[in-house]
């Protein structure tokens, strides 16, 4: 009896809830597990632009969903990720990293309805006014995931952005993109609305500059940009429409440590409302 011939997977982009190939028709070769290779989509600037359109279109619905609803969906991502643990391990992601990534979704799921309580509140202004400050999402976030750890790093960039109602376009680890595409499959089956997360694979130097300059992007997360010169040039481009910028993390950043609030709060706007009080 002959050995069964495996069915191999095609790895594509994740834009607007769909899995398109790059419009450029290009792909690049990466190692897939121990014995095989895979062709991964090499995203173009046009793909990046399409992803921004998808992220913007998803924005009002996602930001307008109740915090409870967003929390439920993030928790659902954790459930689905836990169920696909072995799939990530087969791609070479250590089991501990998959577990940490799952736990990270759970941690952020719990923040959806607590962040406004921790970062908002009543201001006792000197006058007959109710004065209330509440955090709101910035909008569309373009992000660069760290090259490693491919899964935990990617999750640690995506989750804090979307928990508050932002939508993201994220450039995955160029060297280890399979985890990102597999995570996209998790997201696509987790009740996450299409377009909230969009994942590009390929060269950061090609896609990210157009995102940094894009006037319909509100924030730029440079976490995974290792080249300091590139990071600076991207930050300069981001200044054109005053994107909120998260700068790159140092090379030996501990992704397993408690992430704190900074990644969430960097992508928030504070809105203060005044209302008179009078009989």
């Amino acid at each position, binding site marked *: 009896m002959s050995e069964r011939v495996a069915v191999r997977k095609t790895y594509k982009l994740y834009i607007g809830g769909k899995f398109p190939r790059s419009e450029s028709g290009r792909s690049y070769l990466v190692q897939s597990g121990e014995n095989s290779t895979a062709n991964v989509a090499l995203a173009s600037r046009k793909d990046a632009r399409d992803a921004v359109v998808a992220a913007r279109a998803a924005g009002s619905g996602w930001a307008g969903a109740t915090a409870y609803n967003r929390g439920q969906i993030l928790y659902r991502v954790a459930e689905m990720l836990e169920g696909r643990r072995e799939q990530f391990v087969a791609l070479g992601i250590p089991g501990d990293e998959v577990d940490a990534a799952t736990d990270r979704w759970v941690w952020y799921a*719990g923040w959806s309805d607590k962040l406004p309580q*921790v970062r908002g509140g009543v201001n006792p202004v000197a006058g007959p006014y109710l004065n209330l400050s509440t955090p709101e999402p910035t909008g569309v976030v373009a992000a660069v995931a760290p090259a490693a750890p491919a899964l935990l790093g990617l999750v640690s960039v995506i989750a804090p952005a979307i928990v508050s109602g932002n939508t993201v376009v994220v450039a995955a680890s160029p060297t280890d993109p399979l985890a990102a595409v597999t995570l996209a499959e998790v997201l696509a089956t987790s009740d996450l609305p299409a377009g909230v997360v969009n994942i590009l694979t390929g060269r950061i130097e090609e896609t990210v500059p157009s995102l940094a300059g894009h006037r319909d992007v509100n924030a730029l997360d440079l976490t995974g940009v290792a080249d300091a010169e590139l990071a600076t040039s991207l930050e300069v481009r981001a200044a054109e429409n005053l994107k909120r910028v998260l700068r790159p993390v140092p090379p030996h950043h501990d992704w397993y440590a408690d992430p704190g609030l900074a990644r969430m709060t960097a992508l928030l706007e504070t809105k203060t409302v005044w209302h008179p*009080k009078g*009989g």
Partner: protein
Amino acid sequence: MFEYAPAPESRSVVQLQPAYGLFVGGEFVDPTDGDSFTSINPASEEVLAEIALGGVGDVDRAVRAARTAYDRVWGPMPGRDRAKYLFRIARLIQERSRELAVLESLDNGKPIRESRDVDLPLVAAHFFYHAGWADKLDHAGFGPGPRPLGVAAQIIPWNFPLLMLAWKIAPALATGNTVVLKPAETTSLTALLFAEICQQADLPAGVVNIVTGAGETGRALVEHPDVDKVAFTGSTEVGKAIARAVAGTDTKLTLELGGKAANIVFDDAPVDQAVEGIVNGIFFNQGHVCCAGSRLLLQESVADEVLASLKRRMAQLRVGDPLDKNTDIGAINSAAQLARISELADAGTAEGTQRWSPPCELPDRGFWFAPTIFTGVTQAHRIAREEIFGPVLSVLTFRTPAEAVEKANNTPYGLSAGVWTEKGSRMLWLADRLRAGVVWANTFNKFDPTAPFGGYQESGYGREGGRHGLEAYLNV
């Protein structure tokens, strides 16, 4: 006429056992020195199950189980792991919500529409919300590393059996405490099903203990020397007794007690929504709601108009079988409560106020009270001062915002209030002056796990829900 045919929710989703033991140390046990009592369906007086009556020894056993679980497992467990258990419980409640809703309506008498659409979604949301806090307590605003108290004794009422359980157990567990909970005598069943859910979630043994019983069981629990925290929801009278009992000890106490809320309608109110809010305020859950809008304060310039609309709307209320999906008002929870409502309503009539109910047929068996309003009520009448805890509304009038505030605050209670006006500025002015723990504006009887709930004055102290609710279970 459009007569809706009966649309009963199926009972088959619930598997009742003939008898239930106590849930102690992760398993169901027989009471050692206790007896048992029956739980009935208040809509039919049919016996649902035999329930264990926890005695002093049973309470002690449960507290010891909780102590052991606190010392060995739950106290030392990282918040991240506690969170996962609570998330599991939240999910199990979502998955079994129809079963829980049907059982709640059977045992309590509340309409399935409410148990299904209000109670159960809130119960699941409450666990979900607090699950998230378990590993975030450092961010809750109480300084770094807030510590749990230990073993919490929790006593809940019969009006929202499972929801009150959630309000008690979810924050206690999230903050790292273990609990012994006593459900109300007439409504133990959903708490016992919750115990099964704890087993299904593999919650470590002893973290949650359920001791069923009556007043004496509760007293034994409150007075147990190894209890670090007492949380009680119920009558002001019992609340005061508990406050006396824990006096001089280190036991931390929170109380959520009675109310006599004013629901204030101004002449610029959105009238149709105000009428809905009045109905929801007093007839939701048969008026068995501590924060019910039981005193309607109408501005005199619109009083007749609003009353006419209210009566027309009340004629649409459907009273009857709690399991019928179209029922708006179900059964009164017990014969004793029905007697109490009837006694106060009769007092209203005797004191010379005008009583009105829409024509409605009440079932022959079970405990029922037609939705009722009293007009011509003044602050001096008993029905304007005492909590009736039933579908009975007292209608008063006022002329100015200042008079509305004065009348609304003229009560020893202070749990909630409602304000109906399209003028935001007036609403906030009033909210500042109302002595009530919750003020609803152009809405009523809204609850959310993120929003703190609790009273001023004799409505109790401490808050449940939100960031503030965590404080009740932390050493801060």
